[in-house]
Every structure is written in C-alpha cells, then in structure tokens.
C-alpha cells in the first residue's frame, strides 16, 4: 500500500515538474525552417557544419516555403527560427509582415537553381514535350480543340489526341499535392507558360488568367501522389505508361530507373537549368534574421559554410546531391553580401 502511494506521489510530482517550464529559454542550436526542396541541401550542410565545428548541429524543419516564411516573420526572439529556406523568392507581402513584426533586417541568399522534370520509366519511349502540350494534357479547362476562343472541359485522354507525334497511350501523370513548393513552381512556370501560348487567355484579366492556367484537371489523368517522391519513382518503374513530376535531384538519384522528357526540345541538364534555358527552372533561397546573429551562436559560421566554394561551388558537395550552382561571379557577389549580412530593402522584390 505504502509502495503504491509513493509511486503515485512520485508520478504526480514528476508530472508537475514537467508541466512547469521556463519559457523562452536561451538556445544554442540554430533553428532552420522552410522549403522541402531546399531541405535536402540544407540538411547536408547542417550535418557537415555540426561535424566539423564545435557548434551543435542545426535543427531543420521542413515546413514548406510559405509556412517557413510565416514562422520566420513571427518575430525576434529565440522561440522564433533564425533562418528560413524557400524555393521561391520572398513575396512583398511577406516582407511587410516581417517588418510589421519587428523582423527588420533580413539578409537574402540565393543558393542555386533547381529544375522540375517530367520523367517516365527507362523501359518506355523518351518523350519530347512542349509546355503547350503539358498544359493541354493536365489543365482542367483547355481551349476548344475545334477552334474558337472558348474553354471546354479537358477532352484529351491520350497523348496522341494532343499531337499525333506523341505516343498513343493514356495520359497518366503523377505529381505533387498543392501544399508542395514543387507544385507551386510547376503550376506557375510550366502550366502558365504553356497556357500563355493562347492569345485569348493571355489577354484575360490577370486573376482570371491565373484561375484558368493554374487549375489542374481532376478527372483522373493527373494523380496527386503526396509529398513522397520515392513512391512516384517506384510507380514509374512499374508502369512505363505513367509520367511523374518532381525535382531534378530525384532524377539524379534514380537515373537507373527513370529518364526525363525534353521540354521545348531542351534536356534538363545542370547547365540548361542554371541558365534557365530549360523552361521549368527556379531559384532556391534562404533568409537570415540578422537580429539573431550573435544571440544564437554559429549562425554566421553556418552561413559561411553554406556559401563556401567547397559547398555550393561547381565541384562542391551540394552538386553531388543535385543542386545546380549559380554562375561563379554571382556566387562571389552573394558570398560577399552575406558576409556583411547586408539587409534587404524590400525594393528588390
């Protein structure tokens, strides 16, 4: 009986101790949030940084670009993150939100480029697509194939319906869900790019044009596959008639099983993506909260590691994980700005 009582009291005590916490404690680990596209690069840098210095390994959360910027802009103080990664540039609204919450000085770093590829199994025919064909295959509403400036529900079920040069099999494309930055970029670059080929859509009012160009079809041929790109790769290798949409780094990791389609005749090579000759390319960024430099130890050292030539350079270790480096002069200029922690003015956005 006594035993039971002591056990209960101990548990209750332990409970009350755990419940009382010291809010907003000093922190010695760098907190990074943001894009799931930058995550594979940032984690590699963070791990190296932790291994090669006496600082603890930074903690990385993959929250998506928008989610990361929201957390980042919530305020200054150790309960807020120090750095956020993004697979698109900060929007002016987000910059204002940051300013309003006291996050005044932010340093912007462009780290490189990433391409979005449309790939299929190596056992299937290699495809040569144009942005217009991609749009026609995947949009919810497309211009009437019989001519005229009107939109109809997407009638295309086979690739060969779109263009006789394309193979005769069913359209079936697996892609990321709307929460993903890859999806945002794909819709904004590829779908919108293809859709603007039609003058009457291009001449629409901007928000109307966006709602037409950004709507993916929901009648089956486009399959939302979740954030797990590995599953897409597995499915592609099982079903040669299915195509998948994902980041270039996944293509690099799986060159044994899948091949990328050329878009507008351009092969997604690092050079073509970096020069934006490959049409579905985007830049990757991260943002540093200057107010935290000196408060949380190691931020400057982490950033220095990220922007050193052996990391993001042409032969750096990020290239091995699929980053497409910036041209050397841009790297040099950025590294210098980052060293001085030059703040953004808001006008560059």
């Amino acid at each position: 009986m006594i035993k039971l009582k002591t056990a209960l009291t101990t548990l209750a005590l332990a409970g009350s101790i755990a419940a009382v916490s010291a809010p907003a404690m000093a922190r010695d680990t760098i907190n990074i949030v943001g894009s799931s596209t930058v995550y594979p690069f940032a984690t590699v840098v963070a791990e190296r940084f932790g291994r090669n210095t006496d600082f603890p390994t930074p903690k990385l959360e993959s929250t998506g670009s928008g989610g990361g910027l929201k957390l980042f802009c919530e305020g200054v103080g150790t309960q807020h993150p120090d750095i956020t990664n993004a697979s698109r540039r900060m929007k002016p609204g987000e910059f204002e939100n940051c300013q309003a919450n006291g996050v005044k000085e932010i340093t912007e770093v462009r780290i490189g480029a990433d391409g979005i590829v449309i790939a299929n199994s190596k056992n299937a025919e290699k495809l040569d697509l144009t942005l217009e064909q991609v749009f026609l295959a995947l949009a919810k509403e497309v211009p009437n194939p019989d001519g005229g400036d009107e939109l109809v529900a997407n009638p295309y079920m086979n690739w060969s319906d779109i263009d006789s040069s394309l193979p005769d099999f069913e359209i079936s494309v697996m892609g990321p869900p709307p929460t993903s930055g890859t999806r945002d970029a794909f819709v904004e670059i590829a779908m919108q790019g293809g859709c603007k080929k039609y003058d009457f859509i291009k001449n629409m009012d901007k928000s109307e044009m966006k709602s037409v160009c950004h709507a993916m079809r929901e009648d089956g041929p486009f399959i939302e596959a979740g954030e797990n790109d590995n599953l897409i790769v597995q499915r592609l290798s099982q079903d040669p008639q299915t195509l998948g949409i994902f980041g270039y780094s996944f293509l690099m990791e799986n060159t044994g099983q899948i091949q990328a389609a050329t878009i507008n005749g351009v092969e997604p090579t690092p050079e073509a993506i970096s020069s934006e000759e490959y049409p579905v390319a985007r830049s990757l960024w991260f943002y540093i909260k200057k107010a935290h430099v000196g408060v949380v130890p190691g931020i400057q050292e982490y950033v220095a590691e990220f922007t050193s030539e052996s990391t993001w350079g042409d032969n750096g270790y990020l290239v091995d994980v699929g980053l497409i480096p910036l041209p050397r002069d841009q790297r040099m200029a950025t590294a210098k700005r980052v060293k001085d922690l030059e703040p953004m003015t808001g006008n560059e956005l």
Partner: protein
Amino acid sequence: MTDQSSQAEIVRNSLKRRYRKERRFRMYGILAIFIALASLFILFADIISKGHTGFLKTTITLDVTLDSETMYLDDPTDEDQRSMADFVAPIIASLQEHFPEVESAAEKRELGRLIGTYGASKIRDLLKDNPDMLNTTQTMEFLAHDRVSTYVKHADNPRYSIKLSEQQQGWVDQLLEKGVIDTSFNDVLFSRGDSREPANAGILGAIVGSLLTMLVTLAISFPVGIAAAVYLEEFAPQNRITDFIEVNINNLAAVPSIIFGLLGLAVFISLFGMPRSVPVVGGLVLALMTLPTIIISSRAAIKSVPPSIREAAEGVGASKMQVVLHHVIPLAMPGMLTGSIIGMAQALGETAPLLLIGMVAFIVDVPGGFFDSATVLPVQIYLWASSSEQGFVELASAGIMVLLTFMISMNALAIWLRKRLERRW
C-alpha cells in the same frame, strides 16, 4: 393429420437450407479472419524482406599510414593545421596499396569515393585525441559509401539501381574477395542520431526522443487520468454536470489527433512561449491525447470492483478515502495499467500532432534532456521513407521493425500485468 405432416415437411425441407445458411455464415467469419491474418502476414513479410538488410553495415578495413607529409599535418593538436589538413589522402593511399595499377588523379578520386564522407572525420578525431599516432600505421574500420553498400547488399535485386562505375564495381569485387570489405551487424543504427548519409544514420536519437516524450506523457496522463476516473466514479454526484463531463470525455477520445497538435501549438508554444521541437511539448500534447483513453479504461476498471468489497470495508468503519485507497484502487489497478499502457502505445506511434509542434525535423544530435530538440520513432521512419537516397528505404523498414518491437513489448507488458495482478471473484 395432413396438416401436421405437411408442417413437418416444410420444416424438414427448410432444415437443409438453414444448415447451409449457417455454414455460409461461419465461412464468412473464417474468411474475415483469413483476410486479416493474410494482410498482417503480407505487411510483415514486406517490411522484413525490405528491412532486414538495414541491420547490416558494410565496412572497409584498412591499414592506414597516418603520414604527416601526405596529410600536410605536423601538429595534430593545432586546430588551424587540422582544418587545413587532407585526411582523405591517407585513406586513398592505403586503398591504392590494394590496386597498385591506379595512377591517375581522377582514378584515385574514384577510389576514395568507396568510403563514406565520415572517413576523413574519423581520422581527424583519432589524431585529435591521440596526437602521438601521427606517422604510425593504424588498422581502421571505415563505413563504406552508400553506393558501395547498395552494391554489396543488393547487386542482384532489380529494385535497386547500382550507381558505381564498372571500374568501381571491379574494385569492390576484389576487396570483397580479400575480405577487406565486409558486412557485419549495424551498430551505427543503434548508436547515432539521424544523418543524410544512410550509412551513418542511426535511430538512437529517435529512440531517446520517444523515451523522453513518453516519460512526460506518462507522468502527466497517468496520475491525472486516474485521479479524474476515481473522482468521477467514487465521489462525483450524479447530476447533469457530471453527465456533461462524461459525454465530453467520450467525445474527446474520438477527436482526431492532429487537433491536439493544433491545441499544443496555440497553447504551449504561442501562449506559454515554450520552444518548438522539444519532448516536453510533445509529451504534453500526447498526454492530452491519451487522457480520455486512460480515464475511460480506469473508470471501467473501477466499476468492475464488486460493491461487496466497498460495503465490507465501510462495514468495518473505513472512511470513503480509505475504501478507495486501500481497496478500490489496488483492485482496479490491473485494468488501469492495461488502459494506460495501451494509451501509451498509441501515443508512441503518433506523428500527426507532432508535425505542428515542430518535432518533424532533421535532428542529428541525440537529445540529452527534456528541453533539447528531439524527434520520435515514427517521425524518423517518415523522414527516412521520404528521402531520395536508396539506402534509406531499408533503414525506414528497419525503423518500422524497431518501432513494432517497442509496441509489441508494451502490449505484452500490458497482458502480463493483467494476467499477474488480475483477481477473480
């Protein structure tokens, strides 16, 4: 008479059909059990077939000459010199001894890529701790690069693509024959935190994180849950308010777990300013989630204590509190414990609420306390399953096996406790 015989006729005729119906009904039951067992079997077979290789590591054992000239290092205690030194060179040199035909710089680099990137840090750390080892030859065991490991383990599995060049494959084959490359039990898996390199990734960080989180959960939900159950069952008056509370507790048990995550984010992190990604917050959220389960099962256990025990205790003059503490709680304990352990097992497998409070994160260092950033087992499995490197596929399955082991042992503990402490009247 004809009437009776015709009725008997009807019964006789329908008898066959009724028997048939019953046989069919039983068949449905057996079929259902068979489907359940078969899917369980397929699940286990799939996980084990994918994951068993995760428990193996591929190592390369080399006699490394820690020559100060090849490394450009005279004084290993000097930090500046260490940061400029080339710790990959001695590894390449000792690999080259096995392949004297390798001459060109490009080929040497390819040879060096057989070893994972932790190889250089291993030499650096060894020299940092033992400066007198400079200019000696040491036998060291290195972890092979992920690609080598995939080749050694899965060369003839079409699910994996081999990313070594033909030349590298030849080298690995020769080293395997010589016994330089070997596979052994993957102790790294149980002694390190996460890593972006599959060969160096371990699950210890997640195990410790899960343990810390579960401790907080247990410390809060068990006493609170039992106190609530005892009060509601033994002391509370029967009125509308207690009815209302009861209905709400039952509803709370059915609330999707992500809602508790939102609550944790709004209350513990935004309002109380607690840090993100720490076991304390995770434990608090999961405690809220398991509370209803514990209260409901504890109330059921208290209810099942026969009234005769209470009446007998009251009959000899025990106060209400004595009745509860001396008789009801000890007798209801097995049921309460079972409920708590099952609730805890549920919490152990939870990821959704932790996503919102930042415990789904890349964390390398093994957490040392309740306020260190940590992740938990199911989250670690999720992170590995969504990584692009092939080596993580087997690690994710190995992680599932570890998690299942924890779950099964917790459930076994619950059964054992129940069997041991159970009392029959």
